[in-house]
């Protein structure tokens, strides 16, 4: 069992304190951020908002990579989100800075996770996680927007940062396309929303990496969302991503699909999400599909008197690659286009979160999560044998932490402009009881 890394925790805590101390010094009006814009909201007065969060967390992973039992602690999801409207609401600026490159450079222990060269760890997000400018307008009942900057492409479901679990689902890179240079247009007509993006397919290679601007436009996505009833959302999206894993552009392309249904109660106290995703790797040189990965996920949460219980069930297929001397890393760039198998992960995660014992501008919501996984080779012929590698058929993790936050909780993450549906944030992420600053569009 590896001891927790004291220097990393000290740095992380110092960073979090700095972010949370600095934030209140800005005399900005608080605003429940990132709600959808309806046609009459374009006349709203200029308003700005700021939210900063950090999650000191300790994870014990049993039988993670190479069968190791590890206990690690760090500051996860250390981020500051700010935004506001100008020009009578016709221009919106929003940004998210993320400090995980400092607080968890080696990635967050998360058995089953993969993406951006990390495996069995979640990669740290880029320092500049989002920086988007959005122009908004309306023509009668039709609302429209165009956004540009670095952020999410119009695809899939919300970023897990705004969902009820600290540990991201394994399907993060199957269901979201993030941290890209992008241009996104959106239109909304009543309960129907369509947004589409053109973007650069290249994934970040490090927390400090910037998108390759010459690749802007080599990828695209489109998403359709229906809002048949208040709190009900149906979504389907499709994306073609050029060589996401190989920055120079020679890697396999991806063709991605995602459909989902989301329900949330008017107060955010009850939440359900079900999604299906499929990513197909395609060799563009040979014009041939080569690998495919599917995911199905269902999650939900209920909050009663500040106590939240959440459950996530997931089955996701993960490509396996040759690992480096650090068993939590794979080569980037890779030296060929092969994989060493596909592992089908089945996970069950339960989370319990309590009300904040801290009063004041920076509440902290203690939580505990337990996740049990079951990895199996999708094809028995594969050279990667999950049970041998993890020394068990059922790795599991337990995570405990404290959600610290300054400012109002954001309801959504992964949409811009008129593509953001109205609705409350998920209470399981922690909302002070009787918060009069919350307001919901209907």
């Amino acid at each position, binding site marked *: 069992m590896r001891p927790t890394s004291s220097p990393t925790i000290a740095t992380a805590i110092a960073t979090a304190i700095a972010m949370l101390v600095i934030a209140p010094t800005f005399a900005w009006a608080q605003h429940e951020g990132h709600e959808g814009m309806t046609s009459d909201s374009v006349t709203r007065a200029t308003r700005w908002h700021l939210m900063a969060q950090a999650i000191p967390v300790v994870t014990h992973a049993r039988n993670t990579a190479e069968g190791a039992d590890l206990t690690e602690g760090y500051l996860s999801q250390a981020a500051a989100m700010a935004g506001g409207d100008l020009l009578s609401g016709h221009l919106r600026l929003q940004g998210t800075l993320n400090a995980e490159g400092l607080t968890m450079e080696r990635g967050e222990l998360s058995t089953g996770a993969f993406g951006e060269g990390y495996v069995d760890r979640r990669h740290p997000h880029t320092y500049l996680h989002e920086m988007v400018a959005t122009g908004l307008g309306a023509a009668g009942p039709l609302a429209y927007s165009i956004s540009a900057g670095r952020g999410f492409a119009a695809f899939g479901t919300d970023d897990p940062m705004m969902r009820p679990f600290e540990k991201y689902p394994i399907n993060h890179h199957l269901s979201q396309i993030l941290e890209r240079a992008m241009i996104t247009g959106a239109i909304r007509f009543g309960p129907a929303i369509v947004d589409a993006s053109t973007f650069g397919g290249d994934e970040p290679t490090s927390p400090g990496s910037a998108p390759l601007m010459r690749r802007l436009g080599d990828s695209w996505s489109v998403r359709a969302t229906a809002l048949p009833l208040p709190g009900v959302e149906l979504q389907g999206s499709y994306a073609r991503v050029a060589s996401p894993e190989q920055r*120079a552009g020679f890697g396999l392309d991806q063709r991605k699909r995602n459909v989902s249904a989301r329900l949330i109660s008017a107060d955010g106290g009850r939440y359900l999400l079900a999604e299906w995703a499929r990513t197909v790797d395609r060799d563009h040189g040979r014009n*041939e599909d*080569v690998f495919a990965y599917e995911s199905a996920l269902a999650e939900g949460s209920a909050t009663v008197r500040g106590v939240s219980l959440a459950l996530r069930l997931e089955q996701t297929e993960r490509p396996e690659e040759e690992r480096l001397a650090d068993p939590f890393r794979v080569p980037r760039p890779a030296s*060929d*286009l*092969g994989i*060493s198998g596909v592992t089908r992960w089945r996970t069950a995660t339960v989370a319990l979160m309590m009300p904040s014992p801290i009063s004041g501008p920076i509440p902290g919501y203690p939580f505990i999560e337990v996740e049990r996984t079951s990895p199996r080779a999708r094809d028995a*012929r594969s*050279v990667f044998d999950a049970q041998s590698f993890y020394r068990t058929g059922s790795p599991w993790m337990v995570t405990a932490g404290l959600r610290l936050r300054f400012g109002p909780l954001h309801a959504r993450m992964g949409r811009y402009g008129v593509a953001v549906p109205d609705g409350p944030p998920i209470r399981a992420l922690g909302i002070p009881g009787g918060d009069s600053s919350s307001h919901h569009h209907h």
Partner: protein
Amino acid sequence: MTIPSSSRFSQLRHPLHRIAGGLGALLVLALGAACGSDDTSTEPIVTANCPAASGASSGNAMTVLGCGNFKPTRTTGEIFVRGSTAYTTTWGNPSAAASVFYIWDVAGNTPTLVDSVKVDNATTLGDIAVSDDGAYLVVATERTPGAIVIYSLSNPRQPQLVSRFSNAETNAGVHTAEIGRVNGKLYGFLSIDPLGATQAKLVIVDLSNPASPQQVFSQTIGSPYVHDTFVRDGILFLALWNAGVAIWDIGGGGKGGTPAAPVEMGRVQTANGEVHNIWWFKDPSSGSAKYAFIGEEGPGNIGVSALGDIHVVDVSNMAAPREVAFYTVPGAGTHNFSMDEPNGILYAAYYNGGVRALDVRGDLGSCPDAQKSTPRNQTLPLCDLSKMGRELKVGLKDRAEPVYIWGVQFLNGSVYASDMLNGIWKLRAVSR
């Protein structure tokens, strides 16, 4: 950097008798192995039946003489055979376990494990080769710190560590290391992995003093990498993935090139790129040196699937090489080559497609339209070696269990194959 020879190597273990027929009894013995370190941890031996014939063999199946008496739990990589000794490497080793290459007695039909050698600071040994005089064994290591490890083969069954060459240029990982003699001097041609923002490169090392290798050349090359090389008669062929094949004069091309200052003679783009490996064929019976065979490595799922064709390039004019033919196996992909040049037979390791023996003597670039096909995603039809009846035999596709053949070597009437899933095979070479 030179490391002096150090501690003793592993102890010989008695090979276990393989249980024939359908019985699948497993016996586990410990095998001591130590090389260049004081590590005396034992290597597990698991004996099991080779995957037996499925009973559904076609008439053109190569005869399997035997498989190794030891089935590694590690994933097998490359193979090199000299005389009655074969060396097989391993791929994707766990970080704490170091890497290993195995030493086999292949005099009989059943390759018999003699010894194993641990190589520290490596997760994969992607290439292994013996110098033309049999004096030295060179092993390539990945990932960081990438190196070539050089052993003396004064006793071929007990390699003695001579040196380990690693520098800033090789640090990203040595993916392949071909060795060859140019104007009497031994060189290593190292294909170096990309790493982060550092691009792939070719490094050429003077091995005339194996105790102190000296880098003589380095160049970033390939799109996105240089995957392998082939050296012969002072001509160097480079497999540059999507940048195709480059042909360099390093002392035999009449352009004034040397290993320290190569001169490019020509380039060719083969269909679908992904150029992985090369064999330049010199037919001793005719003197023809017209064709180079290019392996394309498409995406593959190890153990399950592979893609990639063999491309035939006419290099009679090295300034303007051109692709004239190809060979494809639906659902499988090629990897490495060996040749029985006196008989004009190319043996191709074909991953999940086993071993393919092709008749490559004579004119490969002229054929009637009925014998042409168009490579996938291309528009220009080329001579199709399958339609031309050039496929002689297929090896290891008659087994009851999957195979995934990484490397092959023809030697003295036999063909040796390294199988990522099963270890080592010995087959009877194809005769005309």
